[in-house]
């Protein structure tokens, strides 16, 4: 498309063709006619557009607004510039705004490449045609487990996503507290309940818990679902294919209701940071949360932090699946500089980018297994191991289902359940009714 690049050109464009033609004719002798002249003018404009700026540039919409990740991303894009000579124009928008605006953003004029999440959220935009197929980039990538490739694949079997980092959800605790009381990592739900009961006797709050913001309780629901009903049921339930009124779902809530007295009370008025605080202050024994729980701890205290994956409930299902949301990159539909965008995605998915990330950000787990992870802390190593050995990786409830379903139905429903765990029948049928009106297509 041709657009004027200066005020003079803009004004010149406002002149009717009949008049403009005369001027141009006098300037460009020998040209055929007004129409043709205008045509070449337009083409020349286009040529300018793509030739002047496009070949050595690519734009990247980033939600990495936290100081550390932002800095790391800048280093990675520098690395890309050195290796390919292409300059990345990074457009950083804070995480929350980016997420809330994603629909507008992708339908407006998105950057060539943008940060996003794996799972349903990725498939949703892929299916809407708002993201481009990057299967050819995947052909050049190595170092990814099948679980990661699966999480990057859309409904049509093509890849739309390049993973960069992830973090697992697990039960975190302070080693010093557990040593003091001689606690052992529980292997089954019974062990877990006994342990929590012992913590209560020792004057601790067994399980720190907070759900003011609505999403932390999804972690508990997810892990119980994965342990009781398994990964495939989780996927189907989130896709709206299974009934919420089924006994399988009721069993999740039943089990949860049994555990709820062991959780920190009044959780609806607490943020995860405050709950993590109680763990940090050694008032709580353990806390089911993402790896980011460490951000509430000072650097010295981080070495005291350890975790175990949620114990087995059903021996048939085992305890190998877990929530480990993956963050990564996607390409917009019709990117301005498509070749560079693909090159950038390939670089992001490669070993070099992962190595830079590990070296500069000790809090991130990189998705590429080929990366040099000697810089990992003990906690990171363990997390990478746990996720690497996981049979299936779920993306977390609100990333695995429609965003409107997660925020308007599930958040209030789980909060309702925490307030009143008795009426499971009423709760599940209410979720099911709302689900039917949301999952219409």
């Amino acid at each position, binding site marked *: 498309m041709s657009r004027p690049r200066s005020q003079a050109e*803009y004004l010149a464009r406002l002149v009717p063709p009949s008049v403009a033609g005369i001027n141009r004719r006098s300037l460009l002798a020998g040209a055929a006619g007004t129409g043709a002249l205008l045509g070449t003018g337009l083409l020349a404009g286009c040529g300018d557009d793509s030739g002047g700026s496009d070949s050595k540039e690519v734009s990247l*919409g980033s939600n990495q607004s936290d100081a550390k990740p932002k800095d790391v991303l800048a280093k990675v894009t520098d690395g890309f510039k050195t290796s390919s000579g292409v300059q990345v124009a990074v*457009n950083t928008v804070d995480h929350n705004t980016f997420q809330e605006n994603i629909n507008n953003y992708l339908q*407006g*004029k998105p950057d060539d490449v943008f940060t996003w999440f794996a799972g349903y959220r990725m498939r949703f935009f892929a299916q809407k045609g708002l993201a481009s197929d990057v299967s050819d980039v995947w052909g050049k990538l190595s170092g990814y487990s099948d679980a990661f490739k699966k999480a990057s694949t859309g409904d049509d079997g093509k890849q739309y996503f390049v993973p960069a980092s992830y973090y697992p959800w697990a039960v975190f605790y302070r080693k010093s507290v557990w040593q003091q009381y001689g606690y052992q990592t529980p292997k089954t739900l019974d062990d877990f309940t006994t342990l929590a009961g012992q913590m209560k006797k020792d004057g601790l709050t067994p399980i720190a818990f907070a759900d003011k913001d609505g999403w932390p309780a999804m972690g508990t629901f997810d892990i119980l679902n994965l342990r009781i009903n398994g990964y495939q049921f989780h996927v189907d339930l989130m896709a709206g294919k299974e009934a919420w009124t089924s006994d399988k779902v009721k069993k999740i809530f039943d089990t949860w209701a049994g555990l709820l007295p062991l959780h920190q009370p009044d959780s609806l008025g607490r943020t995860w940071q405050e709950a993590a605080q109680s763990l940090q202050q050694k008032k709580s024994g353990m806390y089911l949360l993402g790896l980011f729980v460490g951000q509430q701890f*000072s650097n010295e205290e981080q070495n005291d932090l350890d975790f175990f994956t949620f114990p087995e409930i059903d021996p048939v299902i085992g305890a190998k699946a877990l929530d480990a949301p993956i963050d990564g990159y996607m390409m917009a539909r019709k990117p301005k500089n498509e070749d560079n965008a693909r090159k950038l995605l390939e670089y992001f998915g490669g070993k070099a980018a992962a190595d830079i990330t590990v070296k500069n950000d000790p809090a991130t787990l990189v998705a590429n297994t080929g990366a040099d992870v000697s810089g990992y802390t003990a906690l990171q190593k363990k997390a990478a191991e746990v996720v690497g050995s996981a049979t299936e990786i779920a993306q977390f409830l609100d990333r695995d289902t429609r965003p409107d379903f997660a925020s308007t139905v599930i958040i209030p429903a789980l909060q309702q359940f925490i307030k009143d765990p008795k009426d499971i029948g009423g709760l599940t049928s209410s979720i099911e009714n709302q689900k039917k009106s949301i999952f219409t297509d």
Partner: protein
Amino acid sequence: MSTATATRRTEDGVEAPARRKLTPLRLLLHGFLITVALTWLFPIAWAVLTSLRSYEYTAANGYASFGGWTLDNYVTAWRTAEFGKHFLNSVYITVPAVLLTLFLASCVAFVIARFSWKLNLVLLGVFTAANLLPQQALLIPLFRLFTEVPLPEFMSDSELLYDSYWGLILINVAFQCGFCVFVLSNYMKALPRDLYEAAMVDGASIWRQYWQVTMPLCRPALAALATLEVTWIYNEFFWATVLMRTGDKFPVTSSLNNLRGEFFTDNNLVSAGSVLVAIPTLVIFFMLQRHFVRGLTLGASKG
């Protein structure tokens, strides 16, 4: 505000009594006023207090403790959220928007107040009614519209109304005009008609009557509105986040979100940022405070 004018009146009173008697009722009144004042001040004072303490200290000891004083939050907030750049963005949006709103609104108000046409009331009604419209309801049509309207590149590098300052200025002007027309037309209606008759006898054109007779007289009302509009447009946050795409172009209120982490939020840091962002509105208010009170009360008592 009413208390301020009330006390001033007694101070200026011709026969001010030496000292009021301290009756129980008066004690009660003062007790009540002090309580209300403190209640209003509490959140702001709390934010300022929080912003001056380190997160490590409050995390370990709780907010009810005392200690951990530091100014680091301000430095960090300014740096991480890049306030310098974003304050400038806010200026680019607020200043033209306020000036344009006041100019356009005063034009409409002048016509409504000065001439008596049949459609005057309808016109005023339309402008006022638009105030009652929830802005968010217009989000989708406006968003579509903005992504379709092209701008030349020297006006906006997005080449669209979307993601340009022009678009935001336009939106703010559109949404703020209604209220300004309402206030200004009421104010102008209170101006004596004789002025215009005199002006006409002197041969002043309509433009002159507007620009040289009406506008100078409206100064208090304009100053009051300017204070309010600066605050409102500066604080406007919704449209800026929806109609902008480039993080670097966000106004300062939207950039405050940069201080919130993906998961972790340092509340003390956010307090420091909020205090910084609130300062310009306070400055504007104290600068124009005199006009502000006069502008509103003058219009009220005469209208």
